[in-house]
C-alpha cells in the first residue's frame, strides 16, 4: 500500500470538510473492498477519511413497514436484525450471504452501494425495493443511483448517510455465488409491492451492472409464482461473459435464481 494520510471523521460535515481539503481523498467505510484494492496498488488515494467513528451513520430503524438503514451499518448487523427480518426477510438473507463472517463484521451497506460492484448483492436489493439513497446533499432514487459498472450518481465527495425503503408485501433473494469469492455470478431480488407492482433486479449478470428485468416484472405482476418464471424469455444480450461463465449460462441463471427467490 502506498503512503497516505489517515483521518478519522467525527461527523458527516467533518468528513466532507476533510475530503475537500485532501488533494486526492477517498472515504473509508468498512474497507473490505477498498483496502484490498489499495494493497494491489489499484487505488492510491493521498488521504483516507474514515467514517467509522460517526455514530449517526450506524443502525437499523424499523417503524411500521418503513425501514432506514444507516450507511455505516455492517452486513452482520443487518443480517442479525430480528425486526427487519420480520418485515423484509430477503434483505436480511442478502446481507447474511455477503462474503464471509469476518467480512460481514466490517463491510457496510453504504460502502457496498457507493462502490457498486457489478456482482455485489445490495444493488439488486435496493433497486428491487425501490429504495431511496440519502446523502449529505440530497435523496436519490435507486433507479437513478446505480449508473453502471462501479459507477453511481454520487458526485465527488458526496457521502451516503442512509438508505430507506418501504417493506414490500413479499420479497425474495437468491444468488449463485462464486464458490471462491461469494460474489454473485447472478443474483435476483424479487419484490411484490402494493397494487400488484412487482420489481425484479438482477446483479452479477449485466455487462453494465445491476438492472431491472421487464419481462420477469410483467409476468410476476400477473402471477407471483415460480411457475410464472417459466414462460418468460430471458435474453443473453447485454449479459457478461467472463472466466466463470458465459452470457447464455447467466441468462439461464437469471431464471433459476428468480425461481429460487420466489420459492
Amino acid at each position, binding site marked *: *500500500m*502506498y*503512503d*497516505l*494520510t*489517515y483521518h*478519522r471523521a467525527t461527523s458527516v460535515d467533518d468528513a466532507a470538510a476533510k475530503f475537500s481539503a485532501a488533494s486526492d481523498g477517498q472515504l*473509508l467505510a468498512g*474497507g*473490505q473492498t477498498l*483496502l*484490498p484494492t489499495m*494493497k*494491489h496498488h489499484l487505488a492510491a488515494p493521498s488521504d*483516507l477519511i*474514515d467514517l*467509522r467513528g460517526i455514530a449517526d451513520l450506524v443502525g437499523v430503524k424499523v417503524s411500521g413497514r418503513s425501514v432506514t438503514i444507516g450507511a455505516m451499518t455492517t452486513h*452482520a448487523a443487518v443480517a*442479525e436484525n430480528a425486526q427487519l427480518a420480520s418485515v423484509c426477510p430477503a434483505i436480511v438473507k442478502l446481507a447474511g450471504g455477503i*462474503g*464471509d*463472517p*469476518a*467480512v460481514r*463484521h*466490517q463491510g457496510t451497506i453504504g460502502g457496498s452501494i457507493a462502490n457498486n460492484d457489478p456482482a455485489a448483492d445490495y444493488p439488486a436489493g435496493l433497486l428491487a425495493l425501490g429504495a431511496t439513497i440519502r446523502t449529505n446533499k440530497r435523496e436519490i432514487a435507486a433507479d437513478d443511483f446505480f449508473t453502471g459498472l462501479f459507477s453511481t450518481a454520487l458526485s465527488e465527495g458526496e457521502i451516503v448517510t442512509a438508505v430507506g425503503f418501504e417493506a414490500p408485501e413479499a420479497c425474495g433473494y437468491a444468488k449463485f455465488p462464486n464458490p*471462491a*469469492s*461469494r460474489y454473485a455470478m447472478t443474483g435476483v431480488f424479487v419484490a411484490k409491492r402494493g397494487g400488484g407492482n412487482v420489481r425484479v433486479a438482477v446483479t452479477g449478470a449485466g455487462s453494465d451492472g445491476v438492472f431491472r428485468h421487464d419481462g420477469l416484472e410483467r409476468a410476476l405482476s400477473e402471477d407471483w409464482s415460480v411457475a410464472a418464471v417459466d414462460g418468460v424469455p430471458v435474453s443473453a444480450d447485454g449479459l457478461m461473459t467472463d472466466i466463470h461463465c458465459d452470457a447464455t449460462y447467466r441468462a439461464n441463471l437469471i431464471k433459476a435464481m428468480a425461481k429460487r427467490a420466489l420459492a
Partner: protein
Amino acid sequence: MTEISMTVNGKAARASVPDNTLLVDFLREHLRLTGTHVGCDTSQCGACIVHMDGRAVKSCTMLAASAEGAEVTTIEGLANGALHPMQTAFKENHGLQCGFCTPGMIMSATDMVARYKAAGKELTEEAIRHELEGNICRCTGYHNIVRAIQDGAAKMVAG
C-alpha cells in the same frame, strides 16, 4: 505517522505508526504477537483473524488506525497462557497439520460459538461449515476442523 492506542489482550498498547499500517502488521511487527498470521493477504484465507470488540475481523484488511480505542484479542490472549477449550479441542481432534491456518480457525471458531449462543441458535455441523467460508486450510480437508469446533463448542459450554 499517526498515534494509535488500543487494548490488546487486556493490555494497553500505544504506538506511533505510519498511517498505512495494517492492524496485522501492528500486531506482528510492533507488538511481536506473531501468532496472528498473514496467509493470502487478499482477505480470503482468514489466517489473520482476530477479535475486535468481540467480533472476528480480518486484521490484514483493516488499518491499525481504524482500531483506535478498540479491544483486540489475538490467539495469544485467548486463554492467557493456558489452553482455551477450543485450542484443546483442536489438539485432541487433530484439527491441524501444519498449523498455519489454526490461529485464524480458532478465532473464527470461538467467534461463531459466541454468536450462535447469543442468538440462541444451534451451531450444527452444517452451520460450522458455512461459518468457515472465510477460513482456508490446505492440509486437513476441514473434517477434523469441523469436529474440533463441535467438540470445542461443547467444551466451552461445559466451561
